[in-house]
């Protein structure tokens, strides 16, 4: 005897054995983490979920009362597990490096197809048309020195008076070429952790610190100057933190505000999964995905459990429709 629960799966109400539901959620979680590295991965998982819902619907239509473990296993076999996808299309993208990268799944369309050529490219100085803000000079230089283009831009902005002409000359001299960024980690503005522009959130992700630290660093000079300007008679702040030059202080807070605004302008926002991966580093990102996925699973579970109450447990005969099973069974 097995407990049957009723779930809302892709807008369909499905009666499913509790154990089968466990198998299903685990499978979908594995798909999510596998496709999370690919652009449009959410969409792929959603499409597959739709397909599963459809296959469930087919089975229920053919007269069975609920989805069993076997049904879910047969469907999973038809769609394939992430381990199976690897051998399906992964190695072609990396001829010769298969062994080294065998552990991690790769996605052929996202990664540069010819690594050696890529490396040759990055050794010559070019203007980068792929990743440019103005003419791609900073991005090209960053590519050449293998650093984050944001730092290169910051240098150019801070030493604007000197480097302006350098920029113009390089703009004229260098050949333009679309380059792929060749570093691992990169500063982005973090849309998931932001108060103003996401700069502090991005810095926090970049340096792997809590986001209140950069926020405090940006805020303290502002607060201090505010306090020193507003002179309360009982204000004894100056005795502990003597601030000798008020205008120097204002310069700092103006400066730090300027740095924030500059970073806001020159730092791209992490939009795609790939960019978020670069922002947080691979491990951190996968950890954060895992957390959201398990949150989702927990909420689905709760919902399912709430619904269990009004679901009738039907011990009627279970009729397997041969055609329904065949239609989704994998023939290999």
């Amino acid at each position, binding site marked *: 005897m097995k407990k049957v629960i009723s779930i809302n799966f*892709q*807008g*369909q109400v499905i009666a499913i054995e509790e154990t089968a539901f466990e198998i299903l959620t685990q499978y979908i979680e594995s*798909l999510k983490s596998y*496709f999370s590295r*690919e*652009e*449009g991965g959410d*969409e*792929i998982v959603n*499409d*597959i979920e*739709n*397909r599963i*819902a*459809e*296959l*469930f*619907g*087919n089975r229920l*239509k053919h007269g069975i009362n609920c989805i069993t473990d076997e049904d879910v296993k047969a469907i999973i076999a*038809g*769609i*394939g*597990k*992430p381990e*199976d*996808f690897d*051998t*399906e*299309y992964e*190695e*072609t993208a990396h001829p010769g490096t298969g062994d080294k990268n065998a552990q991690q799944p790769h*996605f052929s*369309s996202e990664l540069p197809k010819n690594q050696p050529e890529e490396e040759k490219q990055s050794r010559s100085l070019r203007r980068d048309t792929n990743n440019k803000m103005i003419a791609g000079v900073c991005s090209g230089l960053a590519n050449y020195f293998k650093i984050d283009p944001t730092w290169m831009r910051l240098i150019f902005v801070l030493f604007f008076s000197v480097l302006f002409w350098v920029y113009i000359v390089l703009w004229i001299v260098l050949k333009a070429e679309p380059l792929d960024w060749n570093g691992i980690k990169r500063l982005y503005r973090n849309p998931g952790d932001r108060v103003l522009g996401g700069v502090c959130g991005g810095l926090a992700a970049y340096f792997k610190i809590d986001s209140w630290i950069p926020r405090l660093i940006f805020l303290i000079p502002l607060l201090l100057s505010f306090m020193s300007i507003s002179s309360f008679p009982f204000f004894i702040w100056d005795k502990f933190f003597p601030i000798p030059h008020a205008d120097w202080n204002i310069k700092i807070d103006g400066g730090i505000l300027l740095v924030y605004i500059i970073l806001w302008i020159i730092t791209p926002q992490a939009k795609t999964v790939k960019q978020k991966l670069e922002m947080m580093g691979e491990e951190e990102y996968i950890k954060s995905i895992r957390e959201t996925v398990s949150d989702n699973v927990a909420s689905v579970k709760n919902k399912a459990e709430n619904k269990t109450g009004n679901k009738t447990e039907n011990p009627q005969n279970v009729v397997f429709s041969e055609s329904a099973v065949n*239609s989704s069974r*994998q*023939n*290999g």
Partner: protein
Amino acid sequence: MNIENTQSQMRKGVLEYCVLSIIKRGEAYPGDIIDEMKNAGLQLLEGTLYPLLNRLKNAGILTYRWVESSSGPPRKYFSLTKEGEKFYALLEATWNELAKGVETVTKGAEKREE
């Protein structure tokens, strides 16, 4: 040398061509494509097909529209874009060339063995 690896590489090469060919004949949803491939004896996992369709869509080769379905959630029906037609024509030409060439070469090898 791993025979499975070589076999799967061979299959992979023609997979895109086959899928596009099915879609070229008329709008198709992934379930149709899987069935048709299976009927033809070509093994294709759904977990491979969906990412492939997604990529072709992102590359502007395919486009899709939602169609309500009586047997479940709405389905995505895929069709070729203009660019996709060109892409397919090129693949077709390459395949014909390849098929002819491979035939000639492998037949030649058989003759020599005899």
